[in-house]
């Protein structure tokens, strides 16, 4: 199919889709409607379990089983990326040369790294109270550590980020979530049931199992993202392919130039 035909086919299909979508939207409840039956029930259920952040209550209490599935997707994707980006037989590992970093960048990175990590821990720990939670805080934690790469170099990053430890932590986080579910099954009778004392509303310890599940997710997301980013950084910095002087450079979608022999 030529490019023009393909674009034409797409435009026709897009026009049909746009018309059908617009028609379907006219059947939706009005934008900003006052009728949110599920939302109202979710708010009531969250307040009954003394969890101030209703979104966290839904994710880690009411719909915790769905979040376990989501967690498993994340875990499987990290695993998949690790397998896909492992060093192939015909590739070599080169030690990256340290580069010169501006002193101001180095200072800013060194000053901000602990602050960012602290903010990440704060966002995870207050998931049941304020906006945030395990997913958001985990990403802040993981990217915060990479300030070491920006401000110093790759070898410093490797020292602050022992991959074997974070790989194990990733699995531990995913396992802890499952184990908390089993604890609910044993103590309460249903999987992931909120069995712990609910505490005082709007306190750090409120919400029963919500803070614990939240922390498990935080650990898993933080270490998962670290492991994931490490695979991509390895490709860019460390791994050298045959037929290339250095790491694989992305030359964009131009003509295929100098293709290495496919195995």
């Amino acid at each position, binding site marked *: 199919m030529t490019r023009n035909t393909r674009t034409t086919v797409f435009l026709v299909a897009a026009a049909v889709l746009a018309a059908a979508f617009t028609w379907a939207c006219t059947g939706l409840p009005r*934008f900003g409607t006052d009728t949110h039956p599920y939302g109202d029930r979710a708010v009531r259920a969250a307040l009954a379990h003394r969890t*101030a952040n209703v979104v966290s209550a839904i994710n880690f209490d009411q719909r915790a089983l769905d*979040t376990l599935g989501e967690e498993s997707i994340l875990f499987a994707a990290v695993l998949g990326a690790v397998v896909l980006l492992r060093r192939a037989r015909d590739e070599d590992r080169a030690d990256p040369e340290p580069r010169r970093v501006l002193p101001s960048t180095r200072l800013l990175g060194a000053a901000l790294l602990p602050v960012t990590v602290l903010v990440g821990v704060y966002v995870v720990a207050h998931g049941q109270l304020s906006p945030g939670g395990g997913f958001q805080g985990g990403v802040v934690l993981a990217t915060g550590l990479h300030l070491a790469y920006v401000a110093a170099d790759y070898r410093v990053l490797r020292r602050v980020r022992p991959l074997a430890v974070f790989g194990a932590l990733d699995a531990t986080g995913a396992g802890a979530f499952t184990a908390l579910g089993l604890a609910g099954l044993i103590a309460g009778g249903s999987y992931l049931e909120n069995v712990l004392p609910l505490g005082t509303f709007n306190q750090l310890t409120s919400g029963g199992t919500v803070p614990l599940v939240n922390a498990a997710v935080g650990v898993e997301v933080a270490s998962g993202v670290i492991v994931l980013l490490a695979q991509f950084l390895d490709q860019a910095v460390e791994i050298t392919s045959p037929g290339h002087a250095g790491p694989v450079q992305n030359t964009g979608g131009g003509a*295929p130039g100098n293709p290495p022999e496919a195995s």
Partner: protein
Amino acid sequence: MTLLPFLAAGWIFLVGLYGMVTSRNLVHAVGCLAVAQSSTYVLLLAVGYRRGGTAPVFADIPVGSTVVDPVVQALVLTDVVVGATVTALLLSLVIQIRKRTGTLDPEALTGLKG
């Protein structure tokens, strides 16, 4: 114009799809997929909006305040996480394609190789 937020979501989806159809670079195509996927965030949040509502977090507002629908917000969170992981997985596939065939142009990838 109460339809506008929903239509905006549809527009973002079609723009992303158009990018994927006309893409000449797999990294660009993965980016377009992320754009198309982000339309679902807009659609979900538009569905959950309540006029005059604030964030469904009762840490600093009195219980009983008008809040937007928290269920769709939780769904969007799931959506974002899955979107990010799919993007990561696709990008690792793209890296492998680049290594094995030396090109990122989807139109240059014709033959099947064993």
